[in-house]
């Protein structure tokens, strides 16, 4: 069934895959460098914000997608990071990079603390805990108005770019913010990717798929859950810091129930527990409302985006559990087949079997169908080598 269509075969870990990956990375870097020259500052600013949203969703996905703990309150960590940076810069004149570190640390700690009530609960109760925490945040911010400017907002948060010709002038600041966001996003993706592929990552997936056996087999559930929460929160916190310095103004009304649900929507649309899905999702939830406003000037056009979101989320839950990224992967699988590397090592059998096993071009194992592969990777996380070995 899989040999009916001619497809390009790429062996995992083989030279072709490596070259494609390097070419892809190079292309990405070139595009990123070129964008400031190609796009006008306004558009660049939009990309900056979209990257920031994507960062939050990358963090959210670590928790809700990979670790399977729905977080309805993630906008709160976003806000904690934002306000930490905002307050430190405006009231205490702290250098912005330091505020970023403090914001990440602060969000991480709060994330760990929030993880505790959620530790032993399941299902909707976890969602409720995160919802409660998430909503306490704007209330607290409003109340602490001495520090935070309350509901009227916090102004004048800025991060002046370093002294270099590239960053000169108004445009230079835009470029600077753009690079901050892009680097932040790439960093977050890297952190999540490495975390998921590590032993730690596998223990999180084990907990998600089958909790009791995982605990019995020695996975430290407390450590795994709290660290995941913390890391997820920390990433959102960094995103918040960047949000603060790139927009310059903060109000508690931004971090509302609507924003929390929108982030979750972004994760679902982009594709939970995938690597590129959250990034896609972030861009979708940023740009769709913008386009809706651009396209029509009817009163309430923003709301059309909301309707679209609602419908899309529901449709995706029914059809495409793995979101747009999953769809992309399935489409790709019709033309490209990524084949697991042949297992090397001692094999029972004739010497000829052993000799031939090393060659990537000859298939000894039956090729898995693309949907199996996609589903398997879907469940076990991107690039999990266990998945490959089990086929």
């Amino acid at each position, binding site marked *: 069934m899989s040999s009916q269509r001619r497809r390009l075969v790429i062996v995992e870990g083989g030279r072709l895959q490596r070259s494609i990956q390097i070419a892809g990375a190079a292309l990405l870097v070139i595009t990123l460098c070129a964008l400031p020259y190609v796009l006008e500052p306004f558009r660049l600013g939009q990309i900056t914000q979209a990257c920031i949203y994507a960062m939050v969703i990358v963090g959210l996905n670590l928790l809700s997608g990979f670790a399977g703990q729905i977080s309805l309150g993630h906008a709160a960590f976003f806000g904690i990071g934002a306000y930490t940076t905002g307050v430190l810069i405006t009231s205490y004149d702290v250098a912005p990079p330091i505020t970023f570190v403090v914001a990440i640390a602060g969000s991480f700690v709060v994330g760990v603390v929030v993880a505790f009530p959620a530790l032993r609960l399941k299902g909707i109760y976890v969602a409720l805990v995160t919802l*409660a925490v998430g909503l306490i945040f704007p209330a607290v911010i409003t*109340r602490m108005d001495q520090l935070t400017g309350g509901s009227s907002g916090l102004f004048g948060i800025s991060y002046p770019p370093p002294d270099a010709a590239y960053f000169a002038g108004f445009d230079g600041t835009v470029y600077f913010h753009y690079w901050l966001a892009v680097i932040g996003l790439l960093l977050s993706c890297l952190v999540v990717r490495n975390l998921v592929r590590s032993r730690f990552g596998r223990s999180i997936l084990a907990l998600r798929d089958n909790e009791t056996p995982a605990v019995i087999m020695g996975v430290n559930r407390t450590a795994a859950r709290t660290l995941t929460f913390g890391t997820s929160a920390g990433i959102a916190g960094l995103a918040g810091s960047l949000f603060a310095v790139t927009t310059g103004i903060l109000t508690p009304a931004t971090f509302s129930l*609507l924003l929390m649900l929108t982030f979750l929507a972004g994760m679902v649309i982009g594709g939970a527990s995938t690597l590129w899905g959250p990034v896609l999702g972030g861009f979708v939830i940023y740009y769709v409302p913008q386009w809706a406003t651009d396209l029509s000037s009817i009163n309430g056009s923003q709301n059309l985006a909301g309707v679209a979101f609602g419908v899309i*989320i529901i449709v995706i839950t029914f059809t495409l559990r793995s979101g747009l990224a999953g769809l992309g992967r399935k489409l790709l699988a019709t033309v490209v087949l990524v084949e697991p590397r042949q297992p090397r090592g001692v094999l029972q059998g004739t010497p000829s079997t052993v000799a031939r096993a090393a060659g990537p071009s000859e298939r000894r194992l039956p090729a898995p169908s693309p949907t199996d592969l996609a589903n398997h990777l879907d469940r076990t996380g991107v690039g999990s080598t266990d998945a490959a070995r089990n086929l």
Partner: protein
Amino acid sequence: MEWELLMTRLVQGIVNGAVYGFLALALVCTYRGSKALNLAQGEMAMLCTFVAWSLSNHGVPLLLAIGGGVLLGAGLGGVIERTLVRPFGRDAEYPVLIVCIGLFLGINALAGVIWGGDPHAFPALVPDAPDDYISILGARLRYQQLVILGALAIVVTALYAVFRFTRLGLAMRASASNPDSAVLVGVRVSRMNALGWVLAGAVGAVIGPLIAPSTTLSTGMFFTFIIYACAAATLGGFDSPIGAVIAGLVIGVTENLIASYVGFIGDSLKLAVALVILLIVLMVRPSGLFGSREVERI
């Protein structure tokens, strides 16, 4: 004076709590069958309230317009259960939650598209001028508030009677208690679940017209109420309708008294009080005060 102030705050708390309990009742109705946390309950209620408002604007007598909204709510609940919840089967709490979130965003936005984002005035069922109140133990109970309390009392009593004394109510309770066994005694469990959603939709649609005269009609009107309802349903126990109502009243009174008498809380942290209660319940006794089922714990 002190006494009157306390009574006024108490009464206000009870009235608020009645609304929380009302909405929590709807949440419990959808949870019992489908194990679904329907975050979109408030938005559904808001939609029905707007429809009732539109009907009333076109000359339909207010009571009938509200009835129309209730019918819509019931129908909407049934349709949603049949098409969007039932296909997921059992043990699908997360996907259903996501669907409800989708409904939340979608319905909210839809209402914005149809009626715009501005607040509107909703006609009151009873005279609502500042003079229209009765005095109870020194507190002023406005007619509108009396209607809210009355409506809640009627609905709760009716539901209680149905659940306790009718065969249908028994069938619904059996479905919620043990769906597998219920199937084996000939109960159509899927129909019972659908009924839960229909009831929830209808109950929600009653709340909107009751509170709209004082809170004004707008697409965001239920945002805080749904949160209070979640807190009340958690405190009372997600499988106990009576618990949800009592918990709602408790939360209403508690938050109001704390906000009035504990200085630094003030108004902006009122919601935080309910949220803290929610957190404490989840940490100490997740099944709530009246919930009978043990929440899954390891």
